[in-house]
């Protein structure tokens, strides 16, 4: 089971060369990968551009553009995506203010009202 929030408590951690966090798709259905425009992550005021995010959705891995090149690639609604970002220094142990803005294209909403943007801020802990 996933957290109700888009940014998941589990999965926020340092990795070799950066850190990662997990996101739930806060929509009512899964999506073809080409409908995901990207995610902008901010940690303690430091912003990471959508094109720098490395995505892992189940078996799919890579920048979103590469994942979406496979026409069968999907983000299921009940699978959290892992977003990997590069950072020179590891995040310090303790609290961090984490924000994410996820942009999705919904074909049934007029283009001038798209993308749909989900934004969330959470205070998460790096435990080691």
């Amino acid at each position, binding site marked *: 089971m996933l957290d109700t929030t888009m940014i998941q408590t589990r999965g926020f951690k340092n990795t070799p060369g950066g850190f990662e966090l997990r996101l739930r798709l*806060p929509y009512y259905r899964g999506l073809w990968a080409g*409908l995901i425009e990207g995610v902008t992550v901010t940690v303690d005021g430091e912003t990471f551009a959508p094109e720098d995010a490395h995505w892992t959705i189940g078996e799919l891995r890579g920048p979103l553009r590469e994942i979406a090149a496979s026409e069968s690639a*999907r983000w299921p609604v009940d699978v959290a995506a892992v977003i990997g970002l590069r950072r020179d220094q590891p995040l310090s142990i303790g609290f961090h203010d984490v924000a994410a803005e996820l942009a999705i294209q919904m*074909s049934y909403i007029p283009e001038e009202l798209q993308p749909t943007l989900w*934004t969330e801020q959470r205070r998460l802990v790096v435990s080691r």
Partner: protein
Amino acid sequence: MSGSLEYGVSLYSYTGEYGVTMTLDDCIEDVADLGATGLEILGEAHIEDYPNPPTAWLDAWFERLDRFGLTPTCYGSWVDHRRFPGRDITEDEAVQQLETDIRLAARLGFKYVRPKLGVVTADLEPHPVWEPATLRVLDLAEQQDVIICPEIHWPSVIRSKVVDDYIALIERTGTKHFGLLMDTGVFQTSMHHRSGGVPSRMGRGSARPPITPVVPVSDLEDVLQHVVHVQAKFYEIDDELQDHYIPWAEFLEVLVRRGWSGFLSSEYEGDYATGRAADQLRRQHALLRTLVAKETS
């Protein structure tokens, strides 16, 4: 003419709970527990590894239908014309998407397939691919014994070009495999603002949707003969078992008087809060059954 109304639930109702507080098993068990007999799903939400579910998932699906005595009603699908960044889908790709969903829906026992179509204008004209693509899959729908039924859904209204075009297609082809799905959200008499969930907004600019006029229930009379399925969309049933948004008594009076037969498939779209959908669905079914009993007595 006397019709027969049956009661169902769309698993869309559990948005915000599915995968978070409830599994697919929990959701389906809840539908049966509240006394519904019809089950509506969204292909892209509820089918594992859509569009290629594993055998174990298929076995579990049929086992649950048997155990709970549920009938699959409507299968929600999408024709996402913006699926490939930088270009619209082609007619062939739209056909392929529709064929995939029609075959999968039929395999799971569904009778109705609702494709949600992409729009190309602010006033919600569907992408022009809808018509040639639909005409190309009508034979498959007949073979698979399903009815394709795009929805009349807020903020679209009943008296609109798109609905006229759907009806013209039925009349021109004489097909029995294309109809309309009526979503009761179009009759909302005041706008419900959903609370809870992850905050979202539409678009980066200042564009805002136009205000949608209130659709009188009497408009339903004009199209009812083509309506094959009802999504009983609702937002809140209060502690007095009253709905202040959807005029159910008026709506049901038309269905009963006209002898309409089919499923009222509940779609809860109210506030997000753990456990709320299950409670609201029971309230709505109590309200609908009470009103129908009054109309038919």
